[in-house]
């Protein structure tokens, strides 16, 4: 196999890691919604925590994107 082709395949496989981040982000917003609908008055105060959890979870998906970039251009 050519090295160039292996690069693209590797980058594609690295992006599979984003699926995990997708599940995580979905979990966070889903759970926030279900909590917020049970107690709407407390939802507003938890917006910062929601975004923080989203950002930290998303970071792991970003890392797999980074690995894909490194495989392509590194």
């Amino acid at each position, binding site marked *: 196999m050519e090295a160039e082709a292996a690069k693209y395949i590797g980058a594609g496989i690295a992006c599979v890691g984003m699926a995990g981040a997708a599940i995580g982000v979905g979990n966070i917003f889903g759970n926030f919604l279900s909590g917020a609908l049970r107690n709407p008055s407390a939802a507003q105060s938890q917006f*910062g925590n929601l*975004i*923080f959890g989203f*950002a930290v979870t998303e970071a792991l998906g*970003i*890392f797999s*994107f*980074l690995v894909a970039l490194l495989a392509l251009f590194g």
Partner: protein
Amino acid sequence: MADPNKVDPIHQFNIENIFAIGGNDGGFQLAFTNSALFMALTVGAISAYLILSTSGRGLVPNRAQVLSEMMYEFVANMVRQSAGTEGMKFFPFVFSLFMFVLVANLLGMFPFFFTVTSHIIVTFALAMLVISTVVIYGFMRNGFGFLKLFVPSGIPAPILLIVVPIEIISFLSRPISLSVRLFANILAGHITLKVFAGFIVTLGSMGALGILGAALPLFMTVALTALEFLVAALQAYVFAVLTSMYLNDAIHPGH
């Protein structure tokens, strides 16, 4: 990619010199690029708006002044909640970062405008600024007590052997995740926009049926533009929230 008939979604990120000093003989070159131009535009727009809107200092604020006061209050509340009242000494820093990222992202949404934050070097410089502030201020304020950041309290000693390296790695990955999050979101969003815009052109050149079909990606492009405005504001907010949380670690290093 060099095919002139294809839409090149990466072309928008090209950095071009507007004018340059030196560099003709392969030496050191000082260039004013389109990136620098848009950074200057961003700072100019923020300064002009904030100065002009608040210079009246009306007791009953007009619309422009309300908006600047809202942004001030928004960031002030965020810093106060995440970093405590002591963190308010970093308020000018966080406010400048937030406004710079927000306005740079929003300016980038205009067609033919360059997006400053779509380049990793810009966001990485901002992230390193944040992390070096945290490290330097943390050591200045707490001395070696700052290292308590890596040792969570109330954990039995054998587990600490695992937890401390994890905490150190998570701290070291912060500048990377902070910079790459902003850069990757903006980059990916802008590429997606251009790819869908390319579909419209390709379909539109296929005759009557193609023009009908081109309505679909056109609708997607409009929807994506709206989504990108959301992402632009959200990423600026995330950047500022994480900055104040990291500053909180420097101020109160114990868990």
